[in-house]
């Protein structure tokens, strides 16, 4: 790009001034204050805009009040453009025309046409003046790179543009601090959705709680249902029971009836009785008829009343006729027996009077006792005889002793006294022994006494020979006396034995001598007693016979009642005779009597049968039977009714109902059961309602789907977010990539620029310096001697030459990409003459490729070739 013409309407000191420029080097010469800087500022201002009114010193508004602004004609890519800028908002009013194609372009196209050069780049790189030349020294490599990147690569404006677009797109998607970009909104939505979801998830806990409640309540429901079913059954059963109560009561009443004898009162029995009674009645009627008939006949036949009676009871009386003789005999025998009886009685009474003084007859001896008594009597007699003999002997001896006694009296012998003492003792003992009970003791006692006596008489007495004779006598006496005593004792024993026998047989009152006679009498008495008994028995038998007969007669013939037997017998005999007499005649009477007899017989039989019938049923009358019969029939009916009721009730029901005393109690129980059932039903209803509510709540929770919807929404949002973030990241990365690539590409041009700058710098410094090198922070230069110098070590002029060299090199190298005129405003003031000339030469050389507008106050500049414009003109 190069500038063709500058037309100033009014700018600083200029107004209505036109400058024509060439493509190469244009030198604008003018003294100070001629407007060189104003011209530089005009170019910048028209191309890039007027500075704002905040900086009026930079605006160069015309001092004479002419129209502010101007126009520049420039050629870009073989096309001529005219840009006009006049005073206006936002850097001035711009018009742009494509002169080549005669098109008016929108003013906005201007920056695009100038791309990538903007005001900053233009002023920093393409516009050089003295103060600006110094700024390069503060430039770091990065700054340079930045500047290079800006314009450093071919097409970088496009790439930068793209990067910018991408950046904008990315910013529309997301800004870390933003609110409105899509992703920011999505993030916001995500947050909200997550919160909503968390809220929805709270239902999860509720759900489990509900579920647990449901389970618990279901269990309760099951239990309650079961209970209710049971209760229902119970209630129903009780209600049935209550309904059955009247039946039960009826049944109970029937059951309480006392059962009657039930045998023998059947219908058959009734029929039998009917038959019997009707027959009896028939027979009775028949009998009556017969009797009437007989009476009529009897009146005709003149029969005794007795016979008439007989005729009525012939069957009874006839057998009695056969007994007549027997009875007669019996009567006689009776009389005989009574006579005997009296005789025996008399005799027995005599004997009793004799022997049974105590009122009791002694008993007869047995044969052994009889002999024993005889033997004892014999022995007693012998003992009496012997005693008498011994008594006689003793008497004799006593006489002898009395004779011998006097001698003995002279010699009073102490021993004799002694003898007497012994004897006395013996006697005492002997006599004492008699008092002893029992024969044996008496005997022993007697023997003792005898022994003692004997000792006294014989042992003591024998001491004295003088009394030997006496002693012998005494001894004899004593011997006899002993014998006597012995005999006495024997007698006593025998007597005792006899007494014992007598006592045991009741003969205690009778002397022993009479015992024999008594025995005989006793035997006779016993015989009599027996006979009396026999007689009494016979008498009883006979009497019985007679009385039986009499009773029979009395029954058959009442007329003969209370008459003596003999009389009766005579009457009967008369009857017998009369019967025989009548029986021989074949009369109507007999026939009637026979009939009557038969009828009577039959009647009796039937009556008996009827009686038997009633007796077996423990009844007396027929009416009783019918009453009973009726009762039993009724009872049977009731029984049947009871059974019907029982089967209607059933065993279980009866057992159940028996538990209740009254209907009221049962009804109470029923009501209680009903209440309980209602209560259970109520509980169940409540629970069922609760369960239904729960189920509803659960359904709502389950079916709401809110959570699922939110979940899916969130997933979708996340997908969208991811997509957005991905695009955003991709865009940003692309943007970064473009920048990095541009940097890389620019970085590649830097060595070219440095090389070019080194060359230019060499020319400007007349080869004092041969090389420029970029360090990370700044530049350094190499002297021809090979030494390295930091920029800070350079003199101001040399430094400015370095900056010029770099800038020229940049412009030249970048010209491939960006064609922009170099505007050098008195940039060479600090150059010495040689270097200035070198610089001129260099500018002239550069002017061949790049438009250079060189503004200078140096009038010697005429020497350099190029379009020379004198501001003074």
């Amino acid at each position, binding site marked *: 790009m190069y500038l063709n013409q500058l037309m100033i309407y009014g700018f600083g000191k200029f107004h209505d001034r036109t400058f024509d420029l060439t493509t190469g080097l244009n030198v604008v010469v003018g003294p100070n204050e001629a407007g060189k800087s104003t011209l530089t500022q005009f170019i910048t201002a028209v191309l890039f805009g007027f500075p704002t009114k905040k900086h009026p010193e930079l605006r160069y508004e015309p001092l004479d009040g002419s129209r502010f602004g101007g126009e520049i004609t420039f050629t870009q890519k073989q096309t001529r453009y005219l840009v006009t800028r006049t005073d206006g908002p936002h850097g001035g009013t711009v018009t742009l025309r494509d002169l080549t194609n005669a098109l008016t372009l929108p003013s906005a196209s201007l920056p695009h046409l100038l791309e990538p050069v903007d005001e900053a780049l233009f002023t920093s790189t393409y516009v050089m003046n003295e103060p600006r030349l110094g700024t390069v020294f503060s430039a770091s490599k990065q700054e340079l790179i930045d500047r290079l990147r800006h314009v450093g690569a071919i*097409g970088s404006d496009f790439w930068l543009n793209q990067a910018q677009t*991408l950046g904008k797109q990315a910013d529309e998607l997301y800004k870390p601090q933003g609110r409105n970009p899509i992703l920011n909104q999505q993030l916001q939505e995500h947050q909200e959705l997550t919160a909503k979801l968390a809220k929805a998830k709270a239902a999860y*806990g509720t759900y489990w709680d509900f579920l647990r409640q449901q389970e618990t309540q279901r269990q309760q429901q099951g239990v309650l249902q079961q209970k209710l079913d049971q209760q229902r059954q119970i209630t129903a059963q009780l209600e049935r029971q209550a309904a059955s109560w009247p039946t039960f009561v009826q049944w109970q009443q029937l059951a309480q009836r006392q059962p009657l004898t039930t045998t023998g009162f059947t219908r058959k029995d009734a029929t039998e009785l009917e038959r019997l009674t009707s027959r009896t009645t028939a027979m009775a009627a028949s009998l009556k008829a017969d009797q009437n008939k007989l009476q009529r006949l009897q009146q005709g036949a003149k029969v005794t009343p007795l016979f008439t009676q007989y005729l009525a009871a012939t069957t009874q009386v006839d057998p009695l006729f056969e007994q007549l003789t027997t009875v007669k005999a019996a009567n006689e025998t009776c009389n005989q027996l009574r006579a005997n009886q009296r005789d025996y009685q008399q005799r027995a009474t005599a004997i009793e009077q004799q022997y049974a003084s105590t009122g009791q007859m002694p008993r007869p001896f047995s044969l052994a006792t009889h002999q024993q008594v005889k033997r004892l009597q014999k022995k007693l007699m012998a003992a009496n005889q012997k005693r008498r003999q011994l008594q006689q002997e003793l008497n004799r001896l006593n006489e002898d002793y009395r004779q011998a006694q006097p001698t003995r009296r002279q010699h009073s012998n102490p021993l004799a006294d002694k003898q007497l003492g012994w004897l006395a003792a013996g006697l005492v003992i002997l006599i004492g022994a008699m008092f002893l009970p029992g024969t044996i003791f008496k005997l022993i006692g007697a023997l003792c006494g005898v022994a003692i006596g004997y000792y006294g008489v014989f042992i003591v007495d024998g001491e004295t020979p003088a009394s030997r004779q006496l002693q012998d006598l005494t001894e004899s006496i004593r011997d006899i006396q002993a014998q006597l005593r012995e005999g006495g004792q024997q007698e006593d024993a025998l007597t005792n034995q006899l007494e014992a026998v007598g006592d045991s047989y009741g003969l205690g009152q009778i002397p022993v001598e009479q015992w024999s006679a008594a025995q005989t009498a006793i035997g006779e008495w016993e015989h009599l007693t027996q006979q009396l008994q026999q007689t009494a028995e016979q008498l009883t038998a006979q009497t019985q016979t007679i009385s039986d007969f009499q009773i029979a007669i009395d029954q058959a013939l009442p007329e003969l009642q209370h008459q003596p037997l003999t009389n009766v017998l005579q009457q009967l005999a008369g009857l017998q005779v009369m019967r025989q007499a009548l029986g021989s005649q074949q009369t109507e009477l007999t026939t009637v009597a026979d009939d009557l007899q038969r009828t009577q017989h039959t009647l009796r039989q039937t009556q008996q049968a009827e009686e038997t019938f009633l007796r077996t049923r423990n009844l007396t009358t027929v009416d009783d039977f019918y009453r009973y019969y009726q009762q039993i029939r009724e009872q049977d009916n009731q029984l049947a009714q009871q059974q019907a009721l029982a089967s209607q009730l059933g065993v279980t029901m009866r057992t159940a109902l028996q538990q209740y005393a009254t209907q009221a109690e049962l009804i109470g129980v029923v009501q209680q059961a009903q209440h309980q059932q209602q209560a259970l039903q109520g509980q169940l209803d409540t629970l069922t309602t609760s369960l239904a509510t729960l189920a509803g709540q659960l359904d709502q929770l389950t079916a709401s789907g809110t*959570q699922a919807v939110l979940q899916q929404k969130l997933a979708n949002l996340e997908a969208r977010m991811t*997509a957005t*973030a991905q695009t955003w990241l*991709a865009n940003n990365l*692309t943007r*970064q990539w473009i920048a*990095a690539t541009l940097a890389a590409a620019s970085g590649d041009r830097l060595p070219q620029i440095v090389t070019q700058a080194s060359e230019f710098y060499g020319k400007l410094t007349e080869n004092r310096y041969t090389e420029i090198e970029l360090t990370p922070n700044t530049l350094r230069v190499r002297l021809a001697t090979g030494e390295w110098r930091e920029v800070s070590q350079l003199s101001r002029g040399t430094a400015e030459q370095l900056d010029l060299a770099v800038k020229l090199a940049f412009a030249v190298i970048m010209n491939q990409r960006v064609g922009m005129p170099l505007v050098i405003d008195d940039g060479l003031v600090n150059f010495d003459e040689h270097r200035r000339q070198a610089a001129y030469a260099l500018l002239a050389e550069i002017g061949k490729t790049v438009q250079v507008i060189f503004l200078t106050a140096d009038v010697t500049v005429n020497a350099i070739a190029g379009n020379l414009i004198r501001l003074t003109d």
Partner: protein
Amino acid sequence: MKFIHAADLHLDSPFLGLTTLPSSLLATVRQSTFAAATRIFDRALAEHVDFVVLAGDLFDRSEQSVAAQAFLFQQFQRLDDAQIPVLISFGNHDYAADQRQAVAYPTNVTTFGPKVGTKTLTLVSGETVSVSGFSYPERWVTTDPMADFPDHAQTDWHIGLLHGAVATGSVDHYAPFTIDELLAKRYDYWALGHIHHRQLLNEQPPILYAGNPQGRSINETGTKGAYLVTNQQGKLVPEFFETGVVDWETPIVQLTATTLSELSEQVATWLADHPATKPTLTAMTVELGTALVESISTDWLSLFQKTHQRQMKASQRFVIRLDVTAPAVTLVAPQLDQVYWDQGATTVFTTANEEQLFGKLAQNPALAAWFEQPATRARLQVLAEQNLRQVMGEVGHDVS
């Protein structure tokens, strides 16, 4: 002897990676995990199987879905009514740590505890079956559980129930095991869960992942279902049956479009020519012979979705993503050397730079998780390249 082996029901978990979805499909998608699981239980009832084994991840604990729990109660009750036992070993998504589940499943359900346990069943046929398994006590089980599994029991059959992944040797969080270890137990069948893509690790005895019954993201393509395992001559033979309600497909389509309108038409034509048998979420990759003259804006797809609802419904294919690839053009900028692009790439596509750029977005867990995926950053570079290509296209266009 007949049972069903299923795993990874992931009830009521959302479909991932969907930006928009027509409301008609939304309900189907929302119900899909339930519908697929229901098909499994329907089959169990129809076949009168002896039992059902579920190898983990029945639901996502993090979702805390009432619907999922309610569904399980209902379905288990169905099986209970048919007297079909259910054996469950919980996995990393439905791990047992959460004691929230206060109400037990019906009595036919056996859930294994954190320690390996064995349940013995006596089948109607009189056969006896042991099933050994365990449930994850927490999100990760990093140790090999094989040592705790008993050897083949004294029963007619022994089945292992395991939610886990084959050990890789590095970071194993999911009950790492080796196939040899499983074989060493001499079980008749290993019912595996965790990997959503069904696969047979061993022929006989079968060691097998049932896969999930319903695909839930773009990565879970293909027919999804469960296995009906039957005794055939003393061997347990698994037979796959399909349960998926909504399919995911990632077709690669060659088209010749050069403009967006052509692309739109051709995609619509392709949809008409390739109808699906069931609702299919289709993530298309369109390969073009030449690059499009226009660039595809981000909302082009949503525009397409809006304008082609009828066509998509007719073919039962819902285009959820459309990636267009054109022949690889070397990145030669008209004025810039490839070398500079490469140099630029090395400075830009670094973890540090990307993370710095990602910046605050990392605070969002969903985005952070996405960003951490290894594929993400590669994808970003590809997208950047596409951006550049697009830019260059514009350059070319401008130039021409």
